[in-house]
């Protein structure tokens, strides 16, 4: 296995007596899509800013592409493209002029920069819009312009903070497709989000944050299996007494929860037939049965429920 492109050791950041990031150990391989997931205020953005050298860690150490963000921030920032959670551009300038300014800050030659800008804008489908002032852009277009900036820079690592925040479903789908195509180019991508379900489809590995700590880290499938004890969810609507107890006795059902109008079952396998039989045998009226997949949301809720109970 090659040397990880991003590694943190006991990375900690405190603001006064509040700990934003607590002894973080992270290691991300080249070409990976890594998700930092968790609710707002869990320490995702602080972690990202420390990786970029924009915030000084209180203690601990980070290394990005073999450089120390604290001592060699320029080397790090040359290799890393960053899209902040609320990305802004100079509204009075056109998309192209905005990118040209960034290119100059990166020290690119004018001709080289223009070539890269044209290519990058075509890639995110902003060729025409590039000539218009950014104030006419929609939110999705601004986000694509931010990706174009990362492409233009020739970054090998992209850090995207809440990239799908505030996007409509159509733009979100397009955006996720764009992220996949960046991955195909071999870019290492870190994305942070509180929309667990959306990110689950693009990430190779995820880390679930809570209160500055990583609660869980690993491949999405593995997390689903280890935390939920299986990745099958069955939802039924049924009437009758003692149903929950009856269902809990079905082999393979690990958990039954009452969600008001329906019951939600977590199973090791697709046990719809067994569940239906159990309902009927218990004398209940089965009106609906539906199989769905477990999602990271379930993992998150379940895991941190456990943590909260334990403490």
């Amino acid at each position, binding site marked *: 296995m090659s040397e990880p492109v991003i590694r943190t050791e006991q990375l900690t950041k405190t603001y006064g007596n509040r700990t934003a990031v607590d002894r973080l150990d992270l290691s991300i391989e080249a070409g990976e899509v890594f998700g930092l997931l968790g609710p707002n205020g869990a320490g995702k*953005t*602080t972690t990202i*800013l420390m990786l*970029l050298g*924009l*915030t000084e860690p209180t203690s601990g150490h980070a290394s990005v592409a073999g450089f120390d963000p*604290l*001592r*060699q*921030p*320029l*080397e790090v*920032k*040359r290799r*890393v*493209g*960053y*899209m*902040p959670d*609320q*990305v*802004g*551009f*100079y*509204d*009075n300038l056109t998309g192209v002029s905005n990118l040209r*300014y*960034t290119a*100059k*800050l*990166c*020290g690119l030659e004018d001709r080289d920069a223009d070539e890269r800008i044209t290519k990058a804008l075509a890639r995110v489908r902003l060729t025409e819009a590039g000539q218009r002032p950014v104030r006419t852009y929609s939110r999705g277009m601004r986000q694509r312009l*931010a990706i174009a*900036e990362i492409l233009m*820079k020739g970054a090998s690592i992209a850090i995207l903070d809440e990239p799908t925040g505030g996007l409509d479903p159509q733009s979100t789908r397009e955006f996720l497709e764009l992220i996949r195509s960046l991955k195909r180019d071999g870019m290492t991508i870190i994305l942070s989000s509180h929309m667990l379900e959306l990110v689950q489809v693009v990430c190779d590995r995820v880390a679930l944050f809570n209160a500055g700590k990583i609660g869980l880290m690993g491949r999405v499938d593995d997390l689903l299996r280890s935390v939920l004890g299986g990745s099958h969810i069955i939802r039924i609507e049924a009437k009758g007494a003692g149903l929950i107890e009856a269902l809990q006795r079905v082999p393979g059902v690990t958990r039954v929860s009452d969600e008001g109008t329906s019951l939600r079952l977590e199973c090791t396998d697709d046990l719809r037939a067994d569940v239906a039989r159990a309902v009927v045998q218990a004398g209940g009226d089965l009106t609906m049965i539906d199989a769905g997949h477990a999602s990271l949301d379930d993992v998150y809720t379940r895991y941190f429920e456990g943590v909260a109970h334990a403490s």
Partner: protein
Amino acid sequence: MRREGSALAGAGTVMMKELADNLASTRMRLLEILIFITGAGAVYATIGQVRDTIGEDPFVFLRIFTSAQDPLPSFVAFLGLLIPIVAISLGFDAINSEFNRKTMSRILAQPIYRDALLFGKFMAGLATLAVTLAALWLFVIGLAIFLLGLPPSTEESLRSLCFLIAAIAYGGVWMALAMLFSVAFRSTATAALASLAVWLFFAFFWTMIVKILVQVISPADPYDVAGLISAVETGLGLGRISPNMLFSEAALAFLNPGERGQSLGILLPQQLQGAISGPLPLAESLALVWPQVTGLLAGFILLFTIAYIMFQRQEVRA
């Protein structure tokens, strides 16, 4: 701990971009119109008065800058009021607008240090101010040549050039103050109001406050000459805390070498005994206002340093 790479990499790029923004902004257009109209008005009003003294005064050309014609104040007094406004308007939203536009973290994620952003913005502001003032200066001199029908002498040109430099330094102080507030306050409106409040304080209230303070610190006894002198000196010392005072003294020394510009403090009759009458040479005028000019520079460096340290310590996230 050392950081690697130049702190100023990218400062030139930031400066060029900000300079372009400044020069193209509507705000700057309005201010240019304002100061050109007042400049032209002041010069035009004094020209009649100045014309009468041609042949009597060796520095008739400099009179254009300093003489006042009721109800208008002199050109120098106008500049004393207007330069701070121009400087403040160039600096009050330098840093906080980047936060408000959400461009700060994106720009700082490029391979530059924060230093470059602050230096670039300050240099761009100062360059804009210098260009505007130089244009105004040339305009006034041109107008004077046209209306008086005689060119300035070498010494007059040099003196007015020194005055221009002092005016830019004076503007630099106010711009550094406005930039400091643009770092300290996230809201541009707060930063603008705070800067204008300081300006208002020094332009109008400081002289009144100084009078009260003098009475407290060294109460004047009408029968005690030494006490009177010390009261006046306390007043001058306190007054010189204000950059406006430093600027007007520098302007006086540079532009009025003949009479009042010979001394910036109090002159006792004994001191004048045996004095050679006549205007001060330029080198002497320079020596006279050196403390004022360095005072302005010191104020500017101090304010800029505070802004710099605050900006370095600021969190990037909004």
